[in-house]
């Protein structure tokens, strides 16, 4: 074995990953461990936990009203994620084909310069009863009573999509930017209509970008709490809000931890499922190849 092969065969990269390992343990594994532990403890009187193992927190979660809240959170998250991706796909496509890529990227990043709370409050100023839209519509005489644009489910979804759209656009743009657009011409030449060339050639080739975009939007939206708190109504509470309430108001830390666990588990399951689809796809095509090989 040559010296070079020997060097390559040992994985010399591992020792260099220790800063990542420390960071990962300190700020990810440890907190998750604490939360898991807390969720199995007895509630302390004024917050905190008593060190007595119990399943109380999980029993409390079985309350049907929490079940409805869980379903609603999933619904809102699902709709917001789908909308974000649906908007991000044409945006990413246009950016990848544009000659002003740098400018467009810059425009996507600009909102991050402003604190998210300020941006949410800006939406309140736009959608409120005395807000920009209602005032404008009143001025041109289209309405007399204010439209109830704020403090409902739609407002939550609108603002969530607004907040997380950049996280969907960026990975999709990156994937589209690497795509060879002459393939669309080839598809058209071979008989595909415009939509067919998009669905059969473009989308499969930017798949990884779409998966990343879904992960980047689904997870933070599922755990969102400021948006439903500020622009949502009574029926817009999401799991994130319950967690905050349980910690700050009710001071039931084990229940808050148990809800956190739900968010973590659902998010992780989502990510694993998304990554699994790619792996399953690969396995399926491999199996198909094997079968056809046998038939030859």
């Amino acid at each position, binding site marked *: 074995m040559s010296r070079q092969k020997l060097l390559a065969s040992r994985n010399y990269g591992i020792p260099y990953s220790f800063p990542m390992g420390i960071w990962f343990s300190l700020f990810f594994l440890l907190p998750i461990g604490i939360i898991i532990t807390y969720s199995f403890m007895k509630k302390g009187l004024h917050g905190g936990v008593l060190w007595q193992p119990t399943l109380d927190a999980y029993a409390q979660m079985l309350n049907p009203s929490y079940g409805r809240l869980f379903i609603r959170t999933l619904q809102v998250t699902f709709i917001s994620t789908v909308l974000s991706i649906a908007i991000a796909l044409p945006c990413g496509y246009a950016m990848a084909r544009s000659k002003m890529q740098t400018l467009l990227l810059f425009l996507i990043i600009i909102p991050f310069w402003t604190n998210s709370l300020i941006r949410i409050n800006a939406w309140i100023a736009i959608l409120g009863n005395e807000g920009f839209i209602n005032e404008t519509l009143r001025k041109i005489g289209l309405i007399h009573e204010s439209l109830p644009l704020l403090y409902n489910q739609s407002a939550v979804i609108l603002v969530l999509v607004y907040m997380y759209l950049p996280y969907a656009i960026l990975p999709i743009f990156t994937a589209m930017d690497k795509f060879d657009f002459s393939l669309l011409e080839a598809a058209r*030449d071979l008989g595909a209509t415009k939509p*067919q060339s998009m669905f059969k050639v473009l989308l499969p080739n930017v798949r990884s970008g779409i998966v990343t975009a879904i992960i980047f939007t689904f997870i933070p939206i599922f755990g969102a709490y400021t948006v439903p708190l500020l622009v949502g109504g009574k029926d817009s509470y999401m799991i994130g809000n319950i967690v905050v309430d349980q910690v700050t108001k009710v001071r039931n830390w084990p229940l808050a931890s148990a809800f956190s666990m739900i968010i973590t588990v659902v998010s992780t399951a989502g990510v694993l499922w998304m990554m699994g689809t790619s792996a399953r796809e690969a396995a399926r095509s491999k199996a198909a190849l094997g079968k056809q090989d046998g038939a030859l």
Partner: protein
Amino acid sequence: MKGCDISIEGVSKSFGTFNALEDATITINKGEFFSLLGPSGCGKTTLLRIIAGFETPDSGIVTFDGKNIIGIDPNKRQSNTVFQNYALFPHLSVYENVAFPLRIRKVDNKTINKKVMEYIHLVQLDAHVYKKPNQLSGGQKQRVAIARALINEPSVLLLDEPLSALDAKLRSNLLVELDAIHDQIGITFIYVTHDQSEALSVSDRIAVMNQGKVLQIGTPFEIYESPATEFVAKFIGETNLFDSRVVECVPYKNDEFMVTLDVPELGKQIKVTDYDETKQGQQVSFTVRPEKVRITLEEPQSNNKEINVFKGIVEEPVYSGFQSKLYVKLDNGTELKVFKQHQNYLEDGPEISWKDTVYVSWSANDGYIVEVINQ
């Protein structure tokens, strides 16, 4: 025959202020292997893209078997394209790439399997059916692209510099195969290339283009032996070109004329035969191909007035195996390019080498008046 007649009539196209194509008119016959030849930027690819439907001309029409196809979407045309960069779908296997046009047409699986295997066999890729494009070599990729373009049984196959990304040996092999495929399926091929040797070796006819204009359309023989313009003469093969003035033009045998030209660069008058009559005093461009010039150490003993003889010194011999390229500096300083074939092993008499005094000669038949320059 399965191909179709193509007629390109007065097609022009400009991009901004750049005129990519100016009034191109070409008629291509059913089943022909037709090449569009020219340097990059000459408009050949633009013309191909217009035929394929990716560009719309500013004016003019293109017809397939007499039917105007301008305005018809590329997916509804009877043409398929082989792209320069292959344009294979990276997410699909060789099999699925070739099957793509059939899947779009919702052909049943059994027929797909039969046809895909047939076309994969045609391009000799049977061993690579289930590989992904990134596992193939350049030549294999291009074969997939050819199979994929042919499986829809188009009337016209458009090839956009299909071999330019391959190395020389592979290029000539694939070219021979392409020619064989053309003979086998008999559809019209339109082949875009900047490589004159590719075009000469496979085409039935060639259109030479430069700066958006079609300069000459003809068989490879016509294009090489009787170039219509100076550009064609220089672009196809190598040549010696001189500005000259007609001194005399008299009828000669058959229906030819014997023309005496005054060539300032050569320092004396030369004889050349031509089918067209020229007037005394007319400015013309004269050419003689390097391989048609004989080079000898002794002065050719001939009283034949139809042989043009010049004395010079070998400036730079370039040996390239089957032939030597010699740059001969004539007495008046003009350089003449001469090719000497090595037909026998060291039997052509003493070897001509650097700084030898030599005689170069060519018969009036071998020279050619390229273009009458109107002033």
